[in-house]
């Protein structure tokens, strides 16, 4: 089971990554714990989470092929 992670804005800058693949992540809590271990700055950053383009709140189960996006505060316009 593979999950695609997309990073934007400050988070892309902190990690120097826009996209990464992670394996065997059952839910968003597990995924975020792993990402925070890989990139400690993520642990303290402010962001919302979208699973397959839908903003979620709370722990969410992931399916094979899910895309999880970490979205810093929006600043368009």
């Amino acid at each position: 089971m593979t999950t695609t992670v997309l990073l934007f804005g400050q988070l892309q800058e902190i990690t120097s990554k826009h996209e990464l693949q992670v394996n065997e992540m059952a839910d968003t809590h597990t995924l975020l714990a792993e990402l925070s271990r890989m990139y400690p700055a993520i642990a303290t950053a402010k962001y919302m989470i979208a699973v397959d383009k839908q903003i979620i709140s709370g722990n969410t189960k992931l399916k094979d092929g899910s895309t999880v996006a970490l979205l810093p505060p929006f600043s368009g316009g």
Partner: protein
Amino acid sequence: MSKERILKNIFVKGAIGAAFVGESIQKHSAQTSIGAHSIFLGQVRADLMDEKKVSAIEYTSYEPMALEKMHEIRAFIFAKYELTCMHVYHSLGKVNAGEISLFVFTSSAHRRAAIEACSETVELIKKELPVWGKEIFEDSSHQWKTNT
């Protein structure tokens, strides 16, 4: 054929030119049921922070999500206001201070719907669209923009 919905694109590369805005207005002259247009233009401001001046903003987006969200905003606004049409353009990439990065254009039979719909659409775009602005200073350093 893709099964995905084809969503209207709102993104343009770089600044939105005055000629483009003028042509957009001109295109509506055949629609004579329209009695009012309301236009919002967002311009990049040369803010001063710690004696450093912003020279440009570089915009990025999570485009597939932004276009879905814009589709929802459009549906919400059309359900709420008696609009004839609505057009939204947002820049991606670098836009220099003094240039236009957001163009929202609403039209209706009477002024109130166009004005209120335009204003509410701008607020929703700023609040809900996954777009990020990186403020670039004259010395090439940068900081991430925050919307107020």
